[in-house]
Structures are given as C-alpha cells and as structure tokens.
C-alpha cells in the first residue's frame, strides 16, 4: 500500500502571493505602465509640474535676491544668501506634497471601477492573480507615475544643499511625509474605486475622506484636549448634562494630533512645532500613521473586491451566517442556487416631457439609502461633538467647518459635473440619444441642472451648521443668505465648465481632472502665487492690496470667512450695522450683499458661458441645430 500524497501547505500559495514582484509588479502593473506610457496627457502633466516647480523656484530666488540686494554690507548680504536654501527646500517640499496628494485620488479613483465598467474585472478575477495582487498592482502603477513627479524635484532638493543651511533631516522628513501621504491618498482612492460605480464618485469620496482625515481628526483632537483642560467655558455639554457631564480625562498627545494630519506634520517640519514637540517624532509618527491607513484601505479593498464584483453581476449580499451555511452546503456538494441581489423590478414612474432632465434629477449622489443614512449619521456625530464639547461661540472654531465645507463644495462641483456626457459615452448610450429628437440645448441643460441638483448634501450641511452658529453665537441670520450666494457661484461656474469639459474629453475622469485643475488654478495657485509675487518679487503693498481685492472677489472660501466674521456681531440688529472687513475697505451688510451678488453673477456668467460652449461644441460635433 502506497503512502498518501503529502497535503500541500496552505502557507505556500499565500507566501507566493505576497512576493513583492508578484504583488506590485505583476502583469497588471506592466500593462498599466505600457498604457500610460502611450498617453500624451501623462507627459503634458509632467511638463506642467516641472513648469510649476520652475515658477516657484524662480519666485523664491527673485524674492531672496531682492532682499539680499537691499542689504548694505557684504557680510549681511552673505548672511541673507544663506536663507536661500531653506526657502527653496520648503517651497519645493510643499509643491511636491500638494501635487502628489492632489493627483493621487484622481489617478487611483478610476483604477478598479473602470475595469468593472469595461467588464474586464471578472476576467481578471478568474486568473490566478489574487485580489490583493490586483489592488496592489493597480496602486503601484499609479504610484510609479507619482514617483516620477516626485523625482522631478529631487535635483533641486539636492542642488540647494550647496548653499548650506538645510539639514538633511528636513529633506528626508519632507520627502517621507509627502511619499507616505501620497501612498495614503492613493490607497483611499483605490478603496473607493473598488466600491464605486463611477471614477468621479470614487475620486470625490476619496477627497472627502482625506480632507476629513487630514483636517477633521486633528480638529477633533484639539477640541477634546481643550475640553479636557476646561478651556471651553461655554461648551454646551456641561450645561446640558450638569453633574452628569463626562469628565474627559484623556489627553491626546500633541504628537498624535500632528501625526494624524500630514499637512500639519509638514508644517512642523517647515516652520517648527507648537508646544515643543520634537520634529523627528512628528514626521516619523506621521509616516507610520499614513502607511497604516494605506495598509488598512488596501486590505479592505482587496477583501471586498470579489464580493463587490459578484454583487455587480447580480449576486446578493450575504450575512456572515448565510455565507457560512452556503460554504457548508458547497462543501457537501449541495449548494443552493444563488439568488440575484440586483434590483430586478420596481413600479415604473411616469417620465416627464424633458426626458434627459427627468432622468438626471433622479440620479442620486448616494447610490443607496444606507449610504445616505451613514453620511447623515457621520455629520450629526461631528456636529454633536462640536456643539457639546466645544465652545461654538468662538467664531474661529465655528469657521473651521465652514472652511472645510467650502473646499468640499468646490471639489464636488469640479468633479461631479464633468461626468455627464462622458459617462453616457462610456455606457454607449450617447449614440442612441443622438438619433432621437432631443436638442443639444435640452441635453446640456439636463446634464447641467442634474449635476447641480446632485450637489445638495454638503451645502445643506454647511447651512445647517451656520444656522446653529447663528443661534448659539448670536450671529446675524444674513450670513445664511451670504453663504447660499457664495456657494451657488462656484457650483454654477464649475458645473458649466464641467459639462463643457465632459464633451471635450472621452473619459469622465480626465474631464473631472481638468475641471479640478481649473478650480485649483483659480482658487489655490492664483491667490498664493499672486500674493507671493506681489509681496516678494515686487515688494509692492499697493499691488498686493489690489491683488487681495481680486482674490476676495473671486474666492469663495475667503468670502465665506469674511461673511461669518462680519455676521458675528451680537449687538448689530440691522444689516446696515454689520461691518465687513474687506482689506482696506469696510462694507455694511448691504454693501457686502451687493458685493457677493456681483461676484456670484460673474461666476454664474462663466458657468452659463461654459454651458453655451458645450451646446455649440455639441452642435458642431453632431451637426444638429441647437
């Protein structure tokens, strides 16, 4: 009698799958790298980053030279020259950090959901590749692109050290924070890409999560510490609960607060930390936290990949016990037939006379009601902590969510509106629609209004929060009108340009990225660049002031801050008594309202112009009458 065959170890295939070459650099990585190598846009993007870097360096250099030239003695000039290197390094590190973390979700947002949309994911999952290998290879190919961008600044960082005055640790710390934050941003993007149906939805969800992680977590940490130190005398929690109010004993270490936010950590590396926290502790712990979140995101994406794919093919979501029962049944050779999890039928509604608009306004931002419920619950939780534990009478604290909310609104408007036409093209429904009698104007208007309607959630949360500020901090209710006007302007503008870009680009994620780039250029690069040029290069207060006016007139976040600040006057009962500080000018409530309406009209005009350009392009593209 022969010996039974040795049972193969289960560990061997697992270890084989964890081999870094198979995990990161497998066939998917090679395919994606080959595809990206053929894309012109990739090279244009790299050139744009190099150009941006060159502009930043030039500005820094000119500003330092001007300062040096003004020194009288030679020794003072030499001393001033020693300041060149830190300015260079810090500028480059921030540009590198901003570009890489902003690009990462755009690159990874479509990585998996576009495979699913192209129906290639089931084919990939039938190969010996494990879901972890698929997710990691996708991430690695995108990170390789980002690494190339990061390497572009390496010669500058190394060359600058010739001037002296820069510690090697600063460069190492900055690079470490940037790279780990980029990996985190890419991993969060991959996680949402494995679950969302559209690349733009995944990208938006990734941005929202990253902003909440990078800004929300440190804010929460600071709030809890302040509460623990009893530094919020007006906090509602002790007032409401009296003796039952929890005595929050735990003090979150400052290092942990820095570590939870890569921008805060990079700020500490650039300019030093508060409360004397060692910078080395900050950057090391920030790197570790970012990498842990990355591992968690990639792990979740890999674990859920097969389930998500099965559900997209119609299989139901099973509970743990159902899964166990089914596994046992399969082992016993008696597997019950799989029931469909997809919605198979529902009562038909009556379609309106404008069918495109009818369908568009029924598209929800949240794919399921459960997701909407979770989002509302999350908002209530954050708002609850703010209301109860923090001193919301403090206008500064009240303003932070307004700032975060405004940034989210801009991101949402830039990303959501661009997917209208390109998603029709991706779903192959555009040809069919074009053979109908729907006019280009109807199509564009339907897409535009639909995308505006989908953006309701964040503005509503922001208004609700502001309403609470009005109540608790005794601010003037006109702030609600102001914020509505401020929010509507960019929403209209970016939705109009988004619809236009959606027609110009074949892929929705490309259109969204271009629209986002427009928003970033207008509201991030232009203000920062303008102020830096005016102050440092021309050293002109007048120019700086004029530019400041331009920024405030166009910048929704700046307008939001001024609106909340100006309305926070408990003694002003009439709008005319309110005082809004716009650089060197003081406006009353009426004046500020007119100012905002004018800014809104210009932004709305740009949005309408974008929509009209879309109609014209569509008319030219299809040869139809508008």
């Amino acid at each position, binding site marked *: 009698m022969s010996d039974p065959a040795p049972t193969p170890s289960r560990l061997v295939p697992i270890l084989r799958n964890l081999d870094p070459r198979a995990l990161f650099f497998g066939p998917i990585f090679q395919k994606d790298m080959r595809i990206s190598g053929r894309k012109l846009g990739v090279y244009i993007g790299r050139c744009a980053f190099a150009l941006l870097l060159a502009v930043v360096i030039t500005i820094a250099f000119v500003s330092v030279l001007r300062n040096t030239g003004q020194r009288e003695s030679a020794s003072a000039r030499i001393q001033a020259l020693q300041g060149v290197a830190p300015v260079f390094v810090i500028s480059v590190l921030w540009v590198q950090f901003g570009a890489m973390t902003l690009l990462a979700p755009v690159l990874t947002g479509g990585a998996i959901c576009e495979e699913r949309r192209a129906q290639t994911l089931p084919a990939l999952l039938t190969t010996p590749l494990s879901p972890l290998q698929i997710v990691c290879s996708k991430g690695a190919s995108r990170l390789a692109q980002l690494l190339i961008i990061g390497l572009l600044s390496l010669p500058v960082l190394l060359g600058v050290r010739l001037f002296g005055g820069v510690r090697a640790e600063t460069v190492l710390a900055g690079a470490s924070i940037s790279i780990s934050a980029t990996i985190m941003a890419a991993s969060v993007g991959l996680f949402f890409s494995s679950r969302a149906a559209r690349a733009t939805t995944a990208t938006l969800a990734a941005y929202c999560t990253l902003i909440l992680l990078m800004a929300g977590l440190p804010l929460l940490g600071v709030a809890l510490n302040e509460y623990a130190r009893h530094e919020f005398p007006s906090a509602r929690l002790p007032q409401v609960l009296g003796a039952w109010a929890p005595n929050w004993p735990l003090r979150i270490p400052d290092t942990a607060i820095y570590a939870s936010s890569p921008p805060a950590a990079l700020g500490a590396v650039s300019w030093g930390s508060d409360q004397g926290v060692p910078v080395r502790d900050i950057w090391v712990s920030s790197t570790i936290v970012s990498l842990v979140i990355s591992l968690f995101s990639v792990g979740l994406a890999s674990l859920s990949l097969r389930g998500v794919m099965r559900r997209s093919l*119609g299989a139901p979501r099973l509970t743990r016990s159902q899964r166990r029962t089914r596994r046992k049944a399969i082992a016993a050779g008696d597997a019950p037939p799989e029931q*469909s999890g*997809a*919605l*198979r*039928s*529902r*009562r*038909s*509604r*009556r*379609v*309106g*006379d*404008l*069918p*495109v608009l*009818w*369908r568009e306004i*029924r*598209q929800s931002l949240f794919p399921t009601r459960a997701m909407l419920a979770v989002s509302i619950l999350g908002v209530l939780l954050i708002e609850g902590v703010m209301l109860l534990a923090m001193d919301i009478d403090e206008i500064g604290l009240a303003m932070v969510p307004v700032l975060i909310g405004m940034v989210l609104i801009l991101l949402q408007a830039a990303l959501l509106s661009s997917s209208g036409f390109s998603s*029709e093209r991706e*779903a*192959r*429904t*555009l*040809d*069919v*629609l*074009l*053979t*109908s*009698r*729907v006019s280009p104007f109807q199509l564009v208007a339907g897409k535009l209004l639909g995308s505006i309607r989908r953006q309701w959630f964040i503005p509503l949360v922001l208004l609700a929060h502001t309403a609470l500020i009005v109540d608790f901090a005794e601010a003037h209710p006109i702030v609600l009108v102001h914020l509505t006007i401020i929010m509507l302007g960019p929403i209209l503008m970016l939705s109009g340009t988004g619809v236009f870009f959606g027609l110009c680009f074949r892929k929705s994620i490309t259109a969204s990225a271009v629209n986002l780039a427009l928003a970033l250029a207008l509201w991030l690069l232009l203000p920062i660049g303008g102020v830096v040029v005016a102050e440092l290069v021309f050293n002109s207060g007048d120019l700086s002031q004029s530019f400041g006016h331009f920024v405030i007139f166009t910048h929704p976040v700046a307008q939001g801050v001024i609106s909340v600040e100006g309305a926070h006057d408990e003694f002003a009962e009439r709008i005319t008594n309110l005082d809004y500080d716009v650089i060197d000018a003081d406006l009353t409530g009426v004046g500020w309202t007119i100012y905002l309406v004018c800014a809104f009209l210009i932004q709305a005009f740009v949005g309408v112009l974008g929509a009209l350009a879309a109609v014209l392009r569509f008319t030219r593209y*299809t*040869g*139809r*009458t508008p």
Partner: protein
Amino acid sequence: MIQISRLTKRFGDLTAVDNLSISIEAGEIFGFIGPNGAGKSTTMKVLACLLKPDQGAATVDGLSVRTDGDAIRQRIGYMPDFIGYYDDLTVDEYLQFFAAAFRLPRKKRRPVVDAVLELTDLTAKRDSMVASLSRGMSQRLGVARVLIHDPKVLLLDEPASGLDPRARIEMRELLSELARMGKTLMVSSHILSELAEMCSSIGIIERGRLIFAGSIDDAYAKVKGGERVLIRLEAADNLDRLVPSVAARLTADQRVASVSADPGKPGVIRVELEPGEHGHHFLIERIIQGGGRVAAFTPQGVNLEDAFLRLTKGAVQ
C-alpha cells in the same frame, strides 16, 4: 427609400467607406453583409446622421443626411451593434424616456409604449429593471425602442448578435413582421443563414467598397459555377495511393477547378467545379478510372455563406 451615392467616409488615413452606392426600395429588407471592419456600421451611422460623409450623398426618404438631419431622425430608427442602456430605469420608463425624446405628445405615449411592448413580447417585463434583462430581451427592447416613434426606416446593426437559437428565431420573426407592416429594414448581420431567410436583397461590402448588391438569387447566380462536391471513397488497403491517383484524374478534367484531399479524413476529397452548368456523372467516371469506389457523393448547394466567402475573396478567412 434609401439612396447612397458614391459615399466616402474617412477616419484619418483609414477609408472606412469608399465610393459606396446602394439603393434600397421602400418595404425591402436589405441585408448588409461584410467582414468585421468592412464599413457596415459606419454606413449605418452616416444614414442615422451620427457621422457626416466626406464625399458623396446619402438620402433617406428623399432627405439628405447632410442638411435634413432633424427630419431624417424622425423617419429612422437606429439600433447600434452595442446597445447601451440606462440601467437605473425600468423597461417601461426606458421606452417612455425615448417616447418623450422623440417628442410624442404625452397622451399618445402610454398607448404607443403598450403597443411596442406587445409587439416585442415584453409586456410581462414592463416593470423589470433594464439591467436585469437577458441578452435576448435586451435586443428586443432595443427593437421596441426604435419602433417607439413609428419610423419608416429601421437601421439595425447586428440585431441578432449574441442571441441563442430560439431568441434568433424570435428576432427573425419580429423583423419579418415589421417588414409586413411596411417598414424598410437595413439589417447587418454575421449570421448569414438568418439574412438568407429574411432579406429580399443584400449588399456585400469589403474594406469599405461594395462588391455586390442585388437580390439573393442574383448573388447565388453570380457564384453558381463554383459548385462543390464532397466525395468519400470506399475504404481500401491502398487508400494512401488511391486518393492522389483519383485526385489527379479529376484535376485533369477541364470542368474541375480544384481538388483537395482532407488530411484529417482519409478517403475524403473535395472537388470545386468551374462556373457553368455541369452534370456530376463525369466525376464518378473519373473516380472509377482512377481505381476508386464511391462510398458517398454529396453535392453541396451554394448558400449565402458560400456566396459571401467567394465574393469577398476570402478576406474573412
């Protein structure tokens, strides 16, 4: 009903449709045949006003695709080779959507949707989500959609693609029913036996050029001479030597175009005759002269696939 004259459409260096001329009468079912990438879909897209021709002219019901796009859209129903669906709508909503898109008056929409659902046998699926339909039902929904505004002309690009035999038969019956209703159909398909049973005329296109247009009988007549006969010789010990000997005898006859032995099937010989009317007796005589004995003799009639393969010069091999 459809007139295409010297139509040319280029995409960069590629000429997708080259100097194409076709005429389709009202009430005809015109089968449009060609290998992949031959230019069928491009021609249909030009007729559907989705692409502009670079040269030449195309008219539908006397209206030019260059200038009368809006009027043509009302007269045609176009079903692309890959039908994209709005998977968030039910079957009923999907049809209502296109009824509204074709600007049917609100009161008319309900009866029209009911009628096309009935015609395409989808009434039972009215409230089903479009995403949940099988391939056959999706194709029928595609046909239902093109009928929603009662067009005179239907341009159907591969309507039977990916369907099982039963669904194909149902689709064929549906299209025949539409022809009986007086519609003019232009149907492209790779399933040539389907077209043979359904179409009154065909057009064969290869590399953008039309190489045949006319009735199916004309197509058969054009390739008639090339009849093929399959001969199986009786098993014998010397079959290895016998087959070349018989093949040589057959090749020597002027009426025979080519002879080939099937290496996978010992004793089987394929004979292709020269064009023209020939009897088969001389083949048997030549086999006997070559020392062979006939076990089976199967003349193979010309079908649309043969006509297609011969007319397209093997471009689809």
